[in-house]
């Protein structure tokens, strides 16, 4: 299995406060890795180090290395915009632009100059909407406002928007936590479908969701990586007592 992302000895600080301690792990290509752990354990912070989203926080400080395809993304001279195009992100709360469905998806393609013609742009929008399993539901109303979509549809629109700029990795920060079970199921099916083409990292509080969609699971606590294992192993016979206690609800 080829490693897509290799994290070595990563420490992370918010000012003097250390949020992540010496994290090392490898994320294999075209697999789904789930990050689980109690609130405040650092899993979202860790996720955001993978496309340098934490750069926007002035007091944030990172040490250690994060390599994607053997390239250190924290090396001086790294094109952060290109990095974030390659490593797309989907957030807990869907955040479509106040524009039409079409424009939401076309925006990233346009500003990155990915398309060769207007027809190509439209093809790419359709492809992204199909890949995010939204096309059939929106094809007749592409020019209506994105805010007219349901919560689940808006979240899939955000996934389409991320896919449109041809990323290689997709980071998802609790992508289904605000959705009902049916919309959640659609997102989960989509994750499983998307891993054929993309490497996916998903933060979730829903243990069953991690079990259903991921190939490997990483359990974090108090900024430390407690266990990183195959999901099947993690949920039937974890190696660490702390993992067992967490996944069986012995502490919250």
């Amino acid at each position, binding site marked *: 299995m080829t490693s897509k992302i290799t994290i070595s000895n990563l420490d992370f600080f918010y000012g003097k406060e250390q949020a992540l301690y010496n994290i090392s792990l490898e994320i294999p290509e075209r697999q789904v890795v789930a990050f689980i752990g109690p609130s405040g354990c650092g899993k979202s912070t860790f996720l955001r180090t993978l496309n340098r989203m934490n750069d926007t926080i002035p007091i944030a400080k990172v040490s250690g290395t994060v390599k994607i395809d053997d390239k250190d993304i924290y090396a001086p001279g790294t094109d952060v915009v290109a990095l974030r195009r390659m490593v797309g992100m989907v957030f807990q709360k869907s955040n479509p632009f106040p524009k039409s469905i079409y424009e939401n998806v076309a925006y990233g393609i346009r500003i990155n100059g990915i398309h060769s013609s207007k027809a190509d742009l439209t093809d790419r929008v359709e492809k992204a909407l199909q890949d995010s399993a939204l096309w059939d539901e929106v094809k007749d109303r592409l020019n209506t406002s994105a805010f007219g979509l349901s919560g689940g549809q808006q979240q899939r629109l955000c996934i389409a928007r991320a896919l449109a700029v041809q990323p290689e990795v997709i980071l998802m920060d609790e992508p289904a936590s605000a959705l009902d079970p049916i919309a959640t199921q659609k997102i989960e099916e989509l994750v499983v479908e998307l891993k054929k083409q993309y490497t996916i990292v998903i933060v979730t509080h829903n243990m069953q969701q991690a*079990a259903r969609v991921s190939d490997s699971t990483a359990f974090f606590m108090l900024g430390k990586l407690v266990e990183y294992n195959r999901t099947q192993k993690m949920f*039937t*016979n974890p190696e660490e007592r702390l993992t067992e206690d967490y996944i*069986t*609800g*012995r502490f919250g």
Partner: protein
Amino acid sequence: MEHRIIDQQLDVLRDKILLLGGATEAAVNRAMQALTERDSELAKRVLEEDRAINQMELEIDRMSIEILALQQPAAHDLRFVISVAKITPILERIADHASNIAEAAIILNNEPQIKNYVDFPIMAQTAADMLRTALDAFTNEDADISREVIKRDKEIDASYHRVFNELLELMIENPSATTVAAHLLFVAKHLERIGDYVKDICELNVYLREAAFIKHSKQV
């Protein structure tokens, strides 16, 4: 450690399977006693009590499914519920074999006794010992003892072959004893099957403790 809703349910499930285990063990012991001591009343009691064992099986099934569906157990909790759900029908089948032995006892007790029941007491003793040890090992989640019990299945198999040959000789020497010998052959087969089932329980004990599947593998 916080108190969890699932803990209480797992405790009830544990109590229920231990009761079933106790009832099954008693059924096997009584059935053999009914045979060796020619006590048909005791044999009838075994048959009556089998109904209660069947009910226990249904209750454990219902409860296991409910815990899986509503509590969604993981890790050791999951392995425990799965082990209970798989051991329960095994115990019920062992009890069925005890009932079959009791039925044979009722018939045989009306026939003249043919010499001492050859190797039976040893075979029955081994089966009962293995069953009791397997149930203790389940309670204590002891994989080492479970592995020891698995090895003992060979003792029962060896006894079975001895009994089989002795009964065959008896039939040849004394054709009038054929009916009795044929019933005894079935009893021997029931005991041999009980040994196999106890082995299955022990394999599940190892799964419960170590999450390892040793069934169908040469390595114990």
